[in-house]
Structures are given as structure tokens and as C-alpha cells.
């Protein structure tokens, strides 16, 4: 069961545009240009990319909390393993995919990396009942 938390607006909250007219104009804008074109194609160049990476890999030390990169890797290994086990498939393809995931986190020798075998701090991958009542 979800426990309802009372609605609350933070101080200084701005209201979203929400009149039917606004909706019509936004609809027109969506029709004219669509939404969410890949951000990298919007800006011709972004120096922010030159000093850090966009994912929680080992070279994004600027990002968020300490240990976030390790946790992200462990979550990916955990989520990928569960997904693979559920659907099955070629074991060498599994290893090959795992290698790609590790490289995205800046890890080449995934087989000898203890993080590959360490549980995610959030836990998570345990089988459980679905929460829809």
C-alpha cells in the first residue's frame, strides 16, 4: 500500500501554464517541432563534455555522491544478469554484453574486478511480489 503524503508546494513555486489556451499553443508547438530531440544535436558544441562524462563512470568524479560510480556499475551488472537469466541465451553473448557494460563504466577487466561480484547497496534484485494490489 502506498501511504499518501500530503501535497505541498515548495516556497516560491511557480505554477505551470495550465489553461486550455496554453495547452493548445503547446500542442501546436509539439506538432510544429516535436519534442525531445537528442540534446547533443541541439547545441553545436558543449565544452561541458570536455571536462567530465555524462554517466556515473569512474571518470565522473564531479558527479553526485561518493561511491556513485561503483554503485551504478553494480546495479547495471545486477539488472543485466537478472534480465539475461529471465530470457536465457548464449553464454558467450552474455559475457560479451557484460564486457560492454563494464567498459561503459570505465572497467576493462570485469572478470577480476571485485565490484562485478559485490551486491548493490540498494539491494534490489531479489524476487518479490508485485506491489499492485
Amino acid at each position: 500500500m502506498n501511504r499518501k503524503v500530503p501535497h505541498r508546494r515548495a516556497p516560491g513555486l511557480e505554477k505551470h501554464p495550465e489553461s486550455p489556451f496554453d495547452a493548445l499553443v503547446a500542442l501546436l508547438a509539439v506538432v510544429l517541432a516535436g519534442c525531445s530531440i537528442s540534446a547533443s544535436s541541439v547545441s553545436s558544441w558543449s565544452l561541458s563534455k570536455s571536462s567530465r562524462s555524462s554517466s556515473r563512470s569512474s571518470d565522473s568524479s564531479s558527479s553526485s555522491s561518493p561511491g556513485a560510480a561503483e554503485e551504478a556499475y553494480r546495479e547495471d551488472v545486477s539488472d543485466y544478469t537478472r534480465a539475461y537469466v529471465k530470457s536465457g541465451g548464449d553464454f558467450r553473448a552474455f559475457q560479451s554484453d557484460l564486457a560492454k557494460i563494464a567498459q561503459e563504466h570505465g572497467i576493462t577487466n570485469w572478470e577480476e574486478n571485485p565490484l562485478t561480484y559485490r551486491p548493490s547497496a540498494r539491494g534490489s534484485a531479489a524476487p518479490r511480489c508485485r506491489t499492485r494490489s
Partner: protein
Amino acid sequence: MRLIPALLLTSLGALPALAAPSRFVDYVYVEANEGGSSGGHAAMRFGDETYHFQHEPGGLLRLHRDDWQHFRDTYGVLENRTMHVSRVAMPALAYEELRRRFNERFLIERRLFEQRETLHDDRALLQLFLARRHGDATVATHLRGAGFFFPEEPNSPASDALVRLRRQVQETYGADVIPRRMDELRHELGRLALPAPTPADVEIPADGYPRFGYAFSRRYRDLTTALAALAALDRALPLRAEACWPATSPELHLAPGERRALAGFADRLAGELTRLLGSDRPDWGFTFLVGMARLAALHESEQTGRFVLLDAFPPDPELVPRSSVRRHPDAMTSAQAEAADEFGRARARLGARAEIDEEDLAAVEAAGNRLLELRAAVAEDRDLRVTASALVPSRDAPWSDLVVPDVTEDALAQSLTRVTAAEQRFAGHLDRRCGYNLVTRNCVSELFHTVDAAHVDLGGRIDPTRSLDFIPFVSARAVNDTWPVAEETTLRSYRRTRLDDMYQRENPFRVWLRECNVLTSTIYPRNADDSLFLFFTDDVVVPRPFFGMANLATGLGAAAAGVPLLPFDGGRTLVAGLRGAVFSLPELAFVNLRKGSFDHVPRETHARMAPPTRADSDIEQEANARP
């Protein structure tokens, strides 16, 4: 096969973490701006990770996962768009189910897009074999990681580090291990079965991870890369000169603690590489090549007392044109300062730990590469390589020593026909699975579909197919009305945050007069990506139509001026003027889309944009205190 149970066990651990009573997931609505984002954007945030769907070239929609700070920097700072965050409370189990569903979908889609590349690679490889059979000896493939040692530099002395590694390998596996393994690899390559795609390689399951096999091109490349690695080890090839950064800068001088840490890591790395040769993992060749390159660089660092860093940029990085580098000296200076900070932080990890590991070295490598690349682009007046991905050394090299599988030319041609057909069929399946549709399959609708697929109870279902909820800002209202939102917050755009700051410190009227237009604004420098306009209208309501008229006139005037300029500027002024006119039209009806955007904002400036979201525990405590 023992690997999978071991990894499954890892995912079963740490259940106590789920004992937390509730967690919060953020629904993020990003306001519109001109260009490819005039309809707004939406995302789901789980802690540090942000999931959002983007419209890709080819009319496909794909789930992306970005670090929250990166997402905020891209959309809130560079694209200058205000974000509205609805913080949704849910039980820890439901939160985890939802997070995993998004991550699984991300991994599945990534695999689907990879399969498209794989089928393309299969075809390209078969075409290459046929060309070789027809007598063309010049054809070659590219091998990731081989570029550190190949093409072999003539008359260069053997690498001491690799000579030692070779000895260690021979002591472990026998004196003839290298030629023996190379023969085995060549034999396996010669007997490799040609690709014959089955329905399982082409069809996309409705749900779950796809069961694509270990593709021919992947297998061929893995085996050939292993062959290249053994060839480099056999001859103890030295690193190619251009594979490393020059270690001349004084700040690359190693402190005694760093020197010890690197030497200790080099010893452990040699042991890992020796064991890797006995591993049955199919991709060991690439890891071996990178490991050997690192070993050689570490050895040189130890010898010279200076950091010798491998060039870790990918073979096909994004490039910032030289003209842009030249045009933005301040931005380059500030980016270098940020990169130097990052490099310093990464180096601090070396001295702080008793034993460093691959992640520690990779962090120094990546930060050092970004810093040295920025400096080199300025000093050498050249294009700047950038990448938002993790930097893994992967320098490639052309490889023409190809072992063509021992089959007839007819068999190659038949396989090519089958693979070409499979590639086309898969493209069709991918288009049906991931095709973008303005109304039924956009950045909002897929967020809600993914939530539905997780089967978690959020207090109500949002169905974007039966309402206008597929529009980003309407969807934010639907979330606030339907889900248990504990807090709504606005993260103002970069320009508006700076304005708020100025209003507090200076005369508000003077600030407004100065900052309301692009000519005198001290916050906004003209960005070539933006349309031509005169007044900002995102922070005013009553004067918006009047400003809109001025912007319309500016756009039309620029477009008219752009006509005679066509032969000189390739139509840039004309297009910017016309876009300016188009995006001024909604302003006449009190609606703002355009906000201006930024090429670069120094990190120290936008770091002051403190997120107004409160800690989860504070919101939880306040909710519990209410009757």
C-alpha cells in the same frame, strides 16, 4: 557458466536496504525552448540517475540514462530551461521495482541498437572477405586497442615492460604458449561458421532481454584482437609514440606516494594479465591490449618520474571545430581550470589508498586526457576532441592480416545475401518497436508506458493515449493530480537564477532594463545556435506581445538582410532570422518558447544554483508529523 550464479547472488544480497519505509522518485518537466525542444521535455529521476526518451536521427525514440548533474547542466544551464520537479513518494520496494524496470528497458534498448550495428558489421565483414577472395589485398578492418602497438614502428627497441610480462606468461603456461595460442586462434578463425541469422537474431521480443546470439562479426573481431594482442606480446612491441601524451608539463611530475601507488598497481596488473591469458572469456584480447599499453605507460612513468598517460579518446570522438575553440578563449580557460581540478581530485585518490585499482587509474587517465586535450587544442590551434562517454583507452589500427574462413566464394556470397536480408528485416522490427510518434510514442508517453509495465501502485494510472497528457507540461499537471506528490519544486533556468541573484544585490529596475535584451545583457552572450531575437520574454508577461512584435521585426529584418548575405554565410543569417520570426509568433499571444541558450557556463557560476529540493528524510519527517 559458474559466473551467472555468482552474479545472481550479488543481486540477492543487501535486502536490508529495502527496509527503508519510502523513497522518492522525481517526475521532471523541462520547459520548452526553441529548436528541437519547443514542445518541452520530461524525465524520471531516481537518485543520481535520470531516464528520458530522446528523438534520434532516423525517426526513432530511445531511452537515455544520464547522471542528474549532467542532465541539469545540459537542460537547465546550457539550454537555459526551467525545470518543474514533482517528488513522488512510494514504498522502497515499489521504488526499486520501478527503477529496475527503467534500467532494464535502458539495457534492452541499448542491446537492440547494438544488434543493428552488429548485423551491419556482419555484412561489412563478409564484403571484405569477398574482396579479399577477388584478389584485393588492401582491404582491412579496424581493431580497437591495436593502435597502441600497431602499425609496428620499425627499428624501435623492445618494451622492457612487455619483455617482463612475456617471461612471466611463459613461466606460467610454457615457453611455446604464445605461438601455440596464435596457431589455435588462426585455426578457429579459419573454421568459423559464416553468419546464418535465425529468427532469434532478427526478431525483437515483446518484453524481456533479447536472445541475440554471439554474432559472427563480434566473434571474428574478438579472435583477431586476441591474435593482435599475442603478436604484440610475442615481439614485446613498444608503445607507438602518438599513443601517449607528451609528459613534458611540470604538473605531470609524480609525487613519491603516487610513484609507489603506480608501481604497486603495475605489479598487480602484470599478474592479472597473466591470468587473463588462461580465461575463457571471449573478449580477452582487447583487455589484454589495453592492459599491456597501460603496463608500458606505467613502466615509463616509473622510469621518468612523470605521468605517462595513454591517449584515451575514442577513435571517433565528437569534434569542436577549431574556429569555435578560437572564438571562445574565456570558455577554454575556464574549462581547463575545471579539468585541472578534476585531474587533481583523481590524483588525490592515488595517494589516499593503500592499493589502487583499475578505477583509480582510469579516473586519472580520463581527467588527464580531458585536461591535456583542452591544452593541446588551444596550443596547436586544432579541433577539440570531446566525449560525454567514459574514457576507456581504445585506440584502433587498421588490420589487414585477415584470416578468411575456409569456405567457398559461393558460401560467402550466400551468407552475404542472408545477412543483408536480415539487416533489413531487423531495421523494420526496430522501427516498429522504437519508432517515434508525435502523439502515441513520444518522450512523455514512453515514461508512462514504462511505469505501467513495472506494475507498481502509484495511486492512479496516467494514460497519455486518452488525453492531452502526452504534452510535457500537461503531463506534469497529470502527475501532480494523480500520483502521491510530496513536493513540487521549480529549478529555475540559468539565466533566471542569475537574474534573481542580481535583483537581490542591485537596483531591480536597472537590472531589468539591462538584462531584458540581448544587446546589453551581461548574462547572455550571443549564441550562434539561437535564432535572432532582441528581447527575452520568459520572465515577463504583460510586455510579452510588445517584445514579441520587436522580436518579429528583428527576425524578419535579419532574414531580409540574410538574402544578399547568402553567398557569404551559406544562409546562416537568413535561417536564424526566419527562425527568430517563427519563435516570436507565440509571444504575440503571451506564450513564450524561446529562452536563449549558452555555449558554455563556467562550473563555479552554475554550481551556485543550489537545488531547492529538500532531502528525502525531511519530506518524510514532515509528512509523518501531519495528522
